[in-house]
């Protein structure tokens, strides 16, 4: 697991207020209800920081953010360099 993925997992656990939960890169987050749509805005901001990209609005849907692995794959696929 990359350092960025670890940081994302820590961020998500803080955001969903379950610091003792164990999740990995492939744990379903949105489809399992762990991360709701209101939290996705924070997750997108964190993903942009960790990948130094900008995720264009509309380019990523909640299903694209279902696992930490999918988040980074999405950033790789649709992320644009930050200005």
């Amino acid at each position, binding site marked *: 697991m990359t350092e960025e993925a670890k940081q994302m997992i820590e961020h998500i656990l803080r955001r*969903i207020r*379950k610091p003792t939960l164990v999740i990995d890169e492939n744990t379903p987050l949105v489809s399992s209800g762990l991360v709701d*749509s*209101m939290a996705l805005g924070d997750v997108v*901001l964190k993903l942009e920081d960790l990948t130094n990209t900008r995720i264009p609005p509309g380019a990523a849907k909640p299903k694209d953010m279902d696992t930490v692995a999918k988040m980074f794959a999405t950033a790789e696929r649709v992320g644009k360099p930050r200005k």
Partner: protein
Amino acid sequence: MVRYQNLVEALNAAPGDRPFISAWVNEDEQETVTFAEFRRRARVQAGALRSHSVNGGDRVIIIMPQGIPAMTVFAGAMILGAAPAFIAYPNDKVEPSKYRSGLAGVTANLKARLVVIDTEFPEEMLGHVSLSEETRLLHAGDGRVPGREEELPDAKDQADHVAFIQHSAGTTGLQKGVALTHSAVMRQVEHLVQALEINDATDRVYSWLPLYHDMGLIACFMLPMACHIPVVMQSPIDWVMHPETMLQVISEHKCTLAWLPNFAFQFVPRRTRPNRRTQYDLSSVRALINCSEPVRTSSMQEFQNAFAATGLKAGALQSSYAMAENVFAVTQSDIGRSSGPTRIWADGRQFRNSHRVVQVVEGSAGSVSFTSSGRLLPNHEIRIVSDSSAPLGEGQAGEVLIKSDCLFDGYYNRPDLTAKAIVGGWYHTGDLGFCLDGELYVVGRKKDLIIVGGENLYPQDIEEIAAAHRAVHDGRVIATGVYNPDLGTEEIIIVAEVESEDLLANTVEIEREIRSQVTAGLGVTVATVYLKPPKWIVKSTAGKPARSATLEKLQKEHPELNV
């Protein structure tokens, strides 16, 4: 503004080359349709609906993702004289079981001729669409219903026909369909034009609001359609994933009007990086109207402070009291007043004991503050009444009753609910409020009031104190009263979500602290504090704590309670 008899006539009269809807996805992806193009597409949809036996008076349910295709199906149904109804598209905010239950109730109640869904609609939900022999299901393909362009029928005689059906938002209220006539909607539009000083040459609406909610449907679709003003819209899910884009869209399109629920006034600034705020230009905004949940001055202040450097005008943040049963708005704060909605401070104990406002100096010890929802729209009347229906005077809080020329006739196919809601021509809103100097202040819901030893307590006051505890997650608190037969009165119980599960190890200490803080703040005793893990409290379709559903859940876990 020219007066039209109905919405179809208003749409038909719009200048064809004027932009109507811009569906904004990002800076590189957006689609704008003019009024002429929207009309053409709506006629095509009308043709498709007619080919599926939809006629005047029929109901058409639309369960499609938010966007221009869904809106043209809606307008197409109105062109035929049918009554369309948007139903929320399944999303991750709503529990599937709750969605299925609501969907089954709504479709059974409306007895629609046609249910229009898109090809992405989840198969597992289809079984919960109530399809009778007369009801057909139509897949809208790529989001557009295929069909030929239908000639516009003469719509002049439609004024007293049902224009559409909108549904009260909430967790269990989905079954309550509010049928609204063209004439009621057109009168509401006229009142809004007057109160908001709408100028069809310069105004432009911004919206991410869902169209199945009155704020999205009326303020951001029907009003622009009838007034011939452009609207720039995003999908709600795109907005919630990128809240900052609201600022981008307003800046790019120089939008002048938007409606937002209270939480958005905090949600956007907290998710916009400080170093990016100054790149936006909000100087075009005439009014960002706080509507649909209790107005909190602190939320509006946070927005104003965060975006002060964007050219946001003082007084651009406004408020309104609105409900589907009245088409939309009942009140509106004074547009253009530089200080924004009126805010007052009152003696807290006097207010709780006697429901009476005794004004005190700002920030006085034990004071409570209220933010006005504004003045009544034209041809609107309001009464504040006690539990025994006695009229109450200035500054006295009671149930808000309204009467207007926009009021609905009743809940669709629900005479039982209608008879309880409309008595003698007055709609009993179930909201508690008071009037002062010609302005309405809404303070809570009647059914939520807690009465302890004759003292009236507003759960919001208790919840605000409990939510301030460092271990409690912001906003995830519900307070209610439980009748104790031994005491002959209600006791206060609080349900609160902790920030993280590990805090549940400190339950005893946290409960004690919350109890003592409530006692210190309000002078009342809390019987029990139930601390629950994250995400335990049930949320409404709008993402807010759902009081009744949460209390049902609590009772299941604690059957000894008589909630």
